């Protein structure tokens, strides 16, 4: 019998330079791609150098220290025209964060109420919530911002005929309404009752919203410390209560204890240092309000539009989250003897949150990004101050737009990092 080679390939031939070799192909593709990228970056850089020199535009971040020379209508930190562009940037960033923060809170409230209302058994409420969701989601956010600013807020009466908000106007309205439809018997006492209440302290007019302003005097810090202490304490109590419940099965009303602490401790601290916080209510003097805090109409319209627009999206997220929890879960909880409250709190909501939180975060991000639309009505946010006014004055488009994008990008990345951490924590542990 002749030799039979049982194993091993035929003597290694010269390796063919073949396009079908996946390893080779992938390195060729990547090298070509890398070369293209290098060429692109280089040509952008060279073109930018040439263009900047031709147009006489400075480069670098030296301009941040230059005098800004423009006023800003809403500043959370002290600012005036003689301060630098860098300071104006910080003012704008804080304004963006303020409107985004309040917008997120308001939108969440609106969204959860509307989302639950869409699942209501009551057809009237259900229809109203559906109409709200469909209308707000299908109109562009910029349209809504401009609508509130141009069509609503700027057509309000001037300061002297401001609309007041409070219990007095409410009861006055009910009283005169009842009298109007022939129920003067009921209406008159309500109107009298309204007259006995204190005058309203929140006003809306075409120059914005006027609200009472808290004035902090010496010693106010004590209240803040007390509040922090209360929050920490209730957190610790919560952990302890959970541990004890898991060990012994004995429940402890941690929520109510925490709430009581958070309310009582700052009050006690305030009393101890002699009530340092006073409320300054606005008063109409001459043609405008004196005292109180004036919120500019640009802010009000932007906040309203963002909250209402995003609220519509959140409502849909909440609805689908609740629907995603199967009915068997609540039935099982009931058959274990849990009542409606604990069923909702311990069974339905934790499972619904798993579905709700990821899209909810992206809505929060959208709201933050959409806050840049305030530029259309002149709200001095990061975009309007930096990419708007500063860009106009200095012409340094590359630096300014890059920084603006970087800020929004940083906010996005931080949010998605937190999101990823949360997702990992609540994800279903599959066997």
């Amino acid at each position, binding site marked *: 019998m002749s030799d039979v080679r049982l194993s091993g390939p035929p003597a290694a031939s010269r390796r063919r330079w073949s396009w079908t070799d996946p390893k080779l192909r992938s390195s060729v593709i990547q090298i070509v791609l890398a070369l293209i990228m290098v060429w692109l970056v280089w040509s952008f850089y060279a*073109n930018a150098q040439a263009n900047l020199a031709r147009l006489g535009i400075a480069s670098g971040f030296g301009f941040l220290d230059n005098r800004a020379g423009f006023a800003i209508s809403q500043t959370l930190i002290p600012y005036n025209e003689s301060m630098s562009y860098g300071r104006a940037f910080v003012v704008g960033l804080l304004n963006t964060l303020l409107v985004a923060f309040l917008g997120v809170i308001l939108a969440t409230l609106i969204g959860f109420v509307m989302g639950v209302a869409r699942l209501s058994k009551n057809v009237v409420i259900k229809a109203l919530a559906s109409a709200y969701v469909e209308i707000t989601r299908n109109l*562009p956010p910029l349209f809504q911002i401009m609508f509130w600013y141009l069509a609503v807020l700027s057509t309000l009466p001037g300061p002297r005929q401001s609309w007041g908000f409070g219990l007095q106007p409410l009861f006055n309205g009910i009283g005169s309404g009842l009298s109007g439809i022939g129920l003067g018997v009921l209406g008159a006492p309500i109107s009298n009752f309204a007259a006995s209440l204190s005058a309203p302290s929140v006003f809306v007019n075409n120059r914005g919203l006027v609200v009472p302003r808290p004035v902090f005097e010496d010693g106010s810090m004590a209240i803040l410390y007390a509040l922090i202490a209360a929050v920490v304490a209730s957190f610790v109590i919560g952990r302890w209560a959970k541990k004890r419940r898991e060990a012994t099965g004995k429940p402890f009303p941690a929520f109510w204890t925490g709430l009581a602490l958070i309310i009582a401790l700052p009050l006690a601290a305030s009393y101890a240092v002699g009530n340092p916080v006073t409320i300054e209510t606005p008063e109409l003097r001459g043609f405008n309000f004196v005292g109180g805090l004036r919120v500019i109409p640009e802010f009000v319209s932007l906040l309203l539009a963002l909250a209402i627009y995003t609220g519509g999206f959140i409502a849909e997220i909440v609805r689908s989250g609740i629907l995603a929890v199967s009915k068997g879960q609540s039935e099982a909880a009931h058959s274990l003897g849990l009542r409606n409250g604990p069923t909702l709190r311990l069974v339905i909501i934790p499972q619904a949150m798993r579905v709700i939180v990821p899209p909810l975060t992206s809505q929060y991000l959208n709201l933050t990004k959409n806050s*840049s639309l305030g530029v259309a009505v002149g709200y001095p946010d990061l975009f309007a101050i930096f990419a708007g006014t500063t860009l106009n004055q200095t012409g340094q488009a590359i630096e300014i737009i890059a920084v603006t994008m970087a800020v929004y990008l940083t906010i996005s990345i931080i949010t998605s990092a937190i999101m990823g951490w949360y997702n990992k924590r609540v994800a279903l542990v599959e066997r």
Partner: protein
Amino acid sequence: MSDTTAPLTAPRVSPAQAYVSTTLREQEPAPVATRGPVLWVRRHLVGSVPQVLLTLFGIWLVYVTVPPLIKFFLIDAVWTGTNREACLPEKVGREVGACWPFVWAKLDQLIYGFYPASERWRVNVVYALGAILLLPLLIQQLPGKRLNAILFFGVYPVVAFVLLTGGNLEMQRFLIGSFSGSDLFAGAGTVQGMRVSFWIDFVVSTALVTAIAYLVSRIVAGPEAAPAAAKTTLSAFVLLGLVIFAMDIDVGLPQVETRLWGGLLVTLVIAVTGITVSLPFGILLALGRRSKLPLVKALSIIFIEFWRGVPLITVLFFATYMLPLFLPGRLTIDGLLRALVGVALFASAYMAEVVRGGLQAIPKGQYEGAMAVGLPSSLMLRLVVLPQALKLVIPGIVNNFIGLFKDTTLVLIVSIFDLLGSMRAAFTDPNWASPTTLFTGFGFAGIIYFVFCFGMSRYSMALEKRLDRAQRH
């Protein structure tokens, strides 16, 4: 003893049958409270005290919003007039609602912008063609989707471009001219508005590139692959040549600059261009993100996450103020085109995520099956993966389109007048300044936006249901 139990205890019945009735009981009507309208009302309106309060609150809310709106927009509205006088309560002598003559007067501006009146038929033809091609594409039951899609995504944009701008691009140099920096056969004259030197350049470049493709593929992949490579290259160039030819030839239409465009025209141009351009780029990026090549994957992820992480308005500013600085100085780009570039970058990143969702939904068995029958990866994508993935993400694409449609409003911040921008410009006309002008304008623009977006979202929902049903078997 009641008579209903009497038959059961009768002595003639054997014990085994004692508890089984031999006759069917006559059905009794259900109690009034558990059926029909009474139950419905009870369950849905007045079940408990809080329910009654909620119902009353809801009815009150409807009462204070709906009748005043109807009164404003229909009953008290002014329907005819030539200027603001028609809408002033002092002049009319009654309460005045919506000022519709304002909208009629500005309607042309809202639909065409400042497009020259004598040329508006071109815009109308583009609108009509778009509708004729789009409708059969949206109705699932109609045949010929492939041809229809090619017409809509391939031919229609070119036709629309030529009709809207007037074509006649005056192309100067192609590849050889650009690289060498001088014209081939300069001074060869023009034919029908086309420079002869450009087309000579084009033909020579095409021949050259095809030859290079033939030689390279022959060396790399062997002699049997070379003709196919040359054929693919040649047909790509011929296709490109046809598109350039259509845009370059002088068809006799007067040029209309894009700064004269406005209103609904700009809104639709931006939204449709954005979605058309973003589809191929989005698919490429989505594939890139799932690629095994680390560099391709990293670049795709950076691109997608970057554009998704910043607001569209900064992207528009980037395209308007920053991009021109990065391009060679002699290149001046049209304002609308800059905005289109920004929108395309932004939309591609969002589209990539939508397509990625579809790719992830394809079961692994499909890939394995394709590999088992020996398909190379390019054919596997084209024949097995993409057809299934894209079908799954049609609702997502429609939702993307809705978002893009709403986002087009932002171009008014870079001084391009879309529907909303034209409306805002119309508000400043002192001829029509009246107390109700603003509300009328916002009402009208709102209805247009709502009809478009709501219609599309309903379509996407119906489609989703259909696909869901098809998925199940």
